[in-house]
């Protein structure tokens, strides 16, 4: 027990990296997802095809392989980042596909009449997206986006296999050192994950109430 209490601060500290990776990747994948969803509904066929290919390939590839390709593939063509940046890139590419698909569902839920009204007013395609479609689509997909981002939070653990000292990487090291308390360390790690995930859930529930549109 004393061993566990001694290990806890190190574990908690590792969660700082996990959280950094989560928040940064959430932000970048939101941007990627919005751009991809906009391209997916654009009137320009090549843009739609490009996104369709991106979503189909990346969404259906195991995240570990996406990591492998970024971490080991990009240096082959002369692109070198830190492990953290590679992890951020891999998580963004992967999560971006889920954000894009979630948003597309939100876009499809908007009554077509509102889009016609926006076009009939003289707004351009980009303006219709920006002022009418996306504000409503984003509001309506807050609950499913919460699931996407909680999955992202846990997916950051894959980065441990690629040299990023986040929570799971630290936990593994700790287990190797303190072999008598393996289950305790793992249990504590799981509890911290659950605690943060619950916290995110609460934050999204609050956001959902704020974003609610009266129909």
């Amino acid at each position, binding site marked *: 027990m004393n061993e566990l209490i001694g290990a806890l601060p190190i574990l908690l500290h590792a969660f700082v990296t996990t959280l950094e990776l989560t928040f940064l990747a959430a932000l970048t994948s939101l941007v990627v997802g919005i751009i991809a969803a906009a391209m997916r509904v654009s*009137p320009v066929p090549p843009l739609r095809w490009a996104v369709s290919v991106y979503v189909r390939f990346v969404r259906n590839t195991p995240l570990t392989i996406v990591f492998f390709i970024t971490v080991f593939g990009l240096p082959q063509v002369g692109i070198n980042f830190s492990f953290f940046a590679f992890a951020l890139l891999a998580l963004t590419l992967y999560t971006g596909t889920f954000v894009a698909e979630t948003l597309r569902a939100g876009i499809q839920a908007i*009554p077509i*009449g*509102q889009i*016609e*009204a*926006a*076009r*009939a*007013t*003289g*707004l*351009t395609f980009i*303006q219709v997206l920006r*002022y*009418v479609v996306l*504000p*409503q689509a984003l*509001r309506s997909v807050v609950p499913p986006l919460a699931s996407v981002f909680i999955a992202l939070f846990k997916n950051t653990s894959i980065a441990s296999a690629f040299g990023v000292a986040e929570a799971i990487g630290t936990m593994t090291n700790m287990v190797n050192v303190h072999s008598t308390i393996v289950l305790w360390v793992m249990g504590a790690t799981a509890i911290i994950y659950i605690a943060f995930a619950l916290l995110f859930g609460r934050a999204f529930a609050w956001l959902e109430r704020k974003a609610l*549109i*009266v*129909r």
Partner: protein
Amino acid sequence: MPDSLIVLDKVNKWFGGLHALRDINLSVKAGEVVVVAGPSGSGKSTMCRTINRLETIDNGTIFVNGEPLPAEGRELAKLRSEVAMVFQQFNLFSHLNILDNVALGPMKVRRQPKAEAHQQARDLLVRVGIGDQAEKYPAQLSGGQQQRAAIARALAMRPKAILFDEPTSALDPEMVNEVLEVMTQLARDGMTMLVVTHEMGFARRVAHRVVFMDTGQIVEEAPPEAFFTNPQTERARDFLGKILK
């Protein structure tokens, strides 16, 4: 037709195998109020929606202000801002309050400063009789109020003409008149209007001309008095017999 604001010249449209618009020729002069009547499925709404290209056509030409309708893009967006539309389902933007619904077009399309666009929006909401609803959201308004807000939104663009696509068909009966009154006032003020409607009372009182459509064709075109008292075709007599009971 130099003074015609809207001209449809031999316009045809098919929905798959259905010939939805057949050789439509129609012109609307500036300041004119034209009511389009006809049974359901006769192509009235489709015709109305081709004028701002919410529906594309298969052949023929549509001129607005002497210019043929441009293809999708900035030119079309500009033209749409000059020919406003009021829809059956109101189609207000659910996430914006009534004031922002009315001010959005002027701010984003016309680049009006916010204060000016808001002031104009407030004035227009007063004009359509819902000045006290500006801060509410669409879902908090009755159908009649929503449709008047949609008319204010159309007016905010200072359009050359307004297309009304069955503006009272989705309303509860007690709210039809409040919308028709606003439209009547617009007509008196000299707005160019093309109105697809089943409100024959409105047509009789306000229209300069009634266009009767059936099976995608314009069957009859006459001043309201002549159309209602002395319809020339069997189809128009049949339609009026059913609707005026």
